[in-house]
């Protein structure tokens, strides 16, 4: 019998349920051990007409890659007039932060070791234009692949992971909406951390 560890309600009669061996939401059940990667993203945008703000939107998305081309998505969004943030938007933000907390606590411990093991066995992980192998970080450019000479540190800024060299110069970045961008910090620490 699976044990319910955490629950994130997102609508009346609907919740994101994290059990000890699987998660369930929106009519889907996903075993943790088939998850190959995940991503999450929160976006706030506003719309203006002749520089006059008429509406603002809050959108969140969480995705789970279960192998091949198959990705299971979960999206919520809310909007309000002008620049005023409404209750529904605040709820979307709260749902997002709770989901991130649970995913990092329950899904990341499954996915990250899986990729560490694979990379150690010679595979590489591609996250957008970034490719990470056991001893190199490369990025796609207009002229082909470019390898990072020396890794410095990473920062998460406005929904993206930025990779810097030791001098603080940006090498590349990946939005957290890209599958497995959220696990980049774990992998960078594992393979290139001091």
């Amino acid at each position, binding site marked *: 019998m699976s*044990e*319910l*560890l*955490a*629950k*994130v*309600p*997102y*609508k*009346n*009669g*609907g*919740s994101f*349920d*994290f059990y000890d061996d699987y998660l*369930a*939401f*929106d*009519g*889907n*059940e*996903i*075993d943790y051990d*088939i998850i190959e990667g995940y991503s999450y993203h929160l976006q706030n945008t506003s719309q203006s007409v002749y520089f006059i703000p008429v509406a603002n939107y809050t959108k969140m998305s969480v995705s789970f890659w*279960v*192998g*091949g*081309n*198959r990705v*299971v998505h979960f999206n919520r969004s809310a909007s309000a007039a002008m620049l005023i943030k409404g209750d529904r938007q605040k*709820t979307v933000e*709260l*749902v997002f932060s*709770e989901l991130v*907390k*649970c995913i990092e*606590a*329950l899904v990341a411990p499954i996915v990250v070791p899986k990729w560490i093991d694979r990379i150690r066995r010679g595979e590489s992980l591609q996250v957008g234009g970034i490719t990470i192998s056991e001893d190199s970080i490369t990025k796609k450019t207009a002229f082909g692949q470019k390898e990072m000479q020396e890794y410095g540190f990473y920062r998460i800024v406005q929904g993206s992971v930025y990779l810097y060299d030791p001098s603080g110069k940006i090498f590349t970045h990946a939005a957290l909406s890209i599958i497995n961008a959220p696990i980049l910090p774990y992998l960078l620490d594992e393979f290139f951390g001091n």
Partner: protein
Amino acid sequence: MSFLETKMPYINEDLNEKFSESTEHKSRTKKVVAHKTTTKKTKPIRKVVVIIVVCVVLGIVIFWNQLTDWYVIATGNPTIVKLAQEADMTTRGEVLFLQMDPELVSDSDMETDCSSNAAANNSNGFIEQGCYIPNQNDPTTGKIYLREMPSDYHNLEVVTAAYELLHPVYASLVQSGQETPLNASIESNFKSNEDSNLDTQVANFAKTEPQARDDELFSLLGTEYPGISSDLLSYYSPYFGDSLETVSTLNSQIFTAYNNDQSQLTQLQTTITNDDNTANQALSDANTAYYDSTTWADVGNQAEDTRNYDIYVQDFNIYKNDIADENDTIDQYNALIDKTNTLITEYTGTQPVNQAQGVQAQQSQ
């Protein structure tokens, strides 16, 4: 994992309060399994829906003109659509006609709606049955007004509808650069027609609308004069099904009915005159016989008196019968005059036209 260890299961209090207890996963859950192939499979029902949507969109793109034509006809005023059909317009003609927003109006409204040329026509004795008011910036679009006619003259509405439709048709032909060959064809047909009625109408247009001579001739030749040349006919054929024969036939029917009445009136007038002459002769004969009868009585010739009196009675009876016949014919004549005057009144509406006078019945002496 510290936040999970505080309470099992962990649940955010704010969200828990905001949303009621979930029962969703107990009732309907779908096990997500690891993907085995790299090919993304689309559900069959989704494929069918996509195919249907694509077919519908393609159909709309391909048949856009037919669909818009159908919509214009389907949403048109049924009375106006019926007029277009009675004039045997093609779908293209019908749609163009309906796009001109035709409206049936009363006599008095006609004088207002078609004020730009109604006055000129009336003063010249021509009857305004309809008009086309083009938009100032685009003469190929505008509005058609048709005079609402009594049921006896319904065919005239049909003819007028066709006549007015040919104005925007002419404008679009001119706009498309066909003015020179079109006008040459119109003038050639006008010259070969040799019709005094047409000459009179053209002379009238020369005074009222000198710049619209070929425009008006295009409508006149198309609706009132069958037997136009094939090159001119080709300009009408996209808009009228049966080469306009239907329209010109309807038009001639109206005037044939009027001419028949006129011919019948002439015959009746001749009969009245003949009856009158015969009656007068019989009366004269009766008077002569009566005079002879009294003369023979004065001289005591009973036999001649009686014979002439009998002649007198016989002639007087002939006279009375002739007068009765004449009065019957006068009644028929007056009835026909009434009918003709009613038709004239309905045809002319508010416009002043002299009416025919009836004949007074004879009194026997």
